[in-house]
């Protein structure tokens, strides 16, 4: 079982390597994004030492970290699933003795791991030379961050699976995929930290799973949450991973029953 998932991850590595151009262009796009947001926020601060509890340095660090974290948790599983359902190749997946969703999760994990090791970490070193950011040297904060990041990945993958599986019922869910991508970037705190939103929105967001994807891990690293604050944050992430996992499972079971294999 484990050997199989390890192999799935390995194959994903190979596939990522097969498309080198994507890899290189990814580095450039991410650096540009980080740069753009860092300068934008510097303009917003315009000399003020801090806003909503973020100093300028913390803000730059937050941006760099959340984009690098995004490289890890981001994947196109939703699009892949929708595509496989649309062209009918999901049939091939169903005649294999494995759990389709689990394999997808590990494919996403392989992709994330690849980007974390070959993209985020080297990228972070480069970015730290160019932009004014400050990373903690406290190993316990880093451990907290990586645990939180892993949960962020799980929640995001589950959101992707659910959105992808909608294709079983809609057969074409391109619009939903686009809307989802934008929503996740906005509501997860990637573009604007959650604490910058008006009070009302913050209260609403507290009931949504998105901040568990990016905001919680990034804040964990930037602000170095102490255990009494960190554990409840973990609790939120953990709760969402369970709730969404159950939801995924339910949709999958239902989807298998209504499956129509399109074409051929």
């Amino acid at each position: 079982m484990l050997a199989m998932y390890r192999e799935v991850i390995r194959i994903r590595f190979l596939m990522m390597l097969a498309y080198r151009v994507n890899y290189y262009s990814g580095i450039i796009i991410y650096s540009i994004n980080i740069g753009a947001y860092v300068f934008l926020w510097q303009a917003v601060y315009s000399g003020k030492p801090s806003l909503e509890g973020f100093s300028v340095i913390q803000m730059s660090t937050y941006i760099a970290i959340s984009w690098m974290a995004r490289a890890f948790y981001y994947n196109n599983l939703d699009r892949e699933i929708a595509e496989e359902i649309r062209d009918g190749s999901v049939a091939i997946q169903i005649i294999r003795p494995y759990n389709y969703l689990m394999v997808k999760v590990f494919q996403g994990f392989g992709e994330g791991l690849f980007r974390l090791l070959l993209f985020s970490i080297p990228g972070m070193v480069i970015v730290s030379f160019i932009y004014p950011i400050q990373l903690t040297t406290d190993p316990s904060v880093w451990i907290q961050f990586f645990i939180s990041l892993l949960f962020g990945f799980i929640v995001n993958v589950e959101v992707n699976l659910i959105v992808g599986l909608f294709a079983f019922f809609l057969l074409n869910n391109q619009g939903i995929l686009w809307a989802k991508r934008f929503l996740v970037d906005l509501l997860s705190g990637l573009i604007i930290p959650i604490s910058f939103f008006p009070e009302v929105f913050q209260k609403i967001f507290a009931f949504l799973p998105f901040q568990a994807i990016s905001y919680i891990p990034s804040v964990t690293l930037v602000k170095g949450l102490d255990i009494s604050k960190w554990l409840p944050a973990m609790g939120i992430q953990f709760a969402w991973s369970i709730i969404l996992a159950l939801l995924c499972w339910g949709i999958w079971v239902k989807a298998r029953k209504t499956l129509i294999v399109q074409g051929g």
Partner: protein
Amino acid sequence: MNAIEAEKLTKEFQIYQSRKGLTGAFRDLFNRNYRSIRAVNEVNISIPKGEMVGYIGENGAGKSTTIKMLTGILQPSSGELKVNGFDPHNQREEFVKTIGVVFGQRSQLWWDIAVQESFTLLQKVYRVDNKKLLDRMIDVLNIGELLDQPVRKLSLGQRMRCELVASLIHQPSLLFLDEPTIGLDVLVKENIRQFLREMNQEFGTTILLTTHDLTDIEALCSRVIMLDKGNIIYDGGLTQLKQEWGEGKKIHLELDQEVSLEHLGKVTETLPVSWTKNEANAKLFTAQLQGNSITASEVLSLLVTSGVPIHEMQIQEVSTEEIVRKIYQEG
């Protein structure tokens, strides 16, 4: 225990019909018309282990739907189904370990990576490590040189041979082939057929073959199941099929000199034979033998003894293709 045992297997689909024109499209937004279609209608199939069976029918007859139910992809609407002793849809994960599937129009190899990586992953997926069998399949199908190439660079024939290996990597006792030779050249076809025969003889692999290429069926299968509009219209041996539906043989003659049709008709009036004359060449005639009661030699001996000057002759058997065309047309 039979490899496949299906009783009153039925699949119904809900299809929505779009209304005509722009106003129709707007109405479709709020209220859709559904219509239910029976793709497979109370079909009974029973296939013993080790048999090679051809499954044929026109496009849209319900072949693929049946295969998808038999492989556990689709859930039957009603009916009993046991394949290899499992309920394919509800016991999916265990069941699929015992079958292999090749979809001619769909690849099960990973498109962007080398063929052998796909094989390694499949070995892990099925938890097998049978290097000997794999090497042999690679050898017989002659794909050793393709192993380190990405699948997207393979030609159709090369890919299909790799697909076959992939589907048999776990040595399944039952193999489904959905148009495996579509678009392949003669040599590759022959290679694949030879390989399938070997697998069948050596491991007793049961094979259910869907195809439009009837030469595949003639080369491999002793039994044919024919489907039309969701119903089985024939299930039995290939030879019986020919006897039941075969129009009888044809004899093409080239004579040394022109003879009238009436004369030939008179000579063979004791036999159920009808003559036609070639429009372009007055020396060419065709005798259509009705049924299977008479032989070509009876006709020929009558012709020879009554002095018809035969220059050249050719006896034409009815091809399966012709029989099937006839069945399709007559429904």
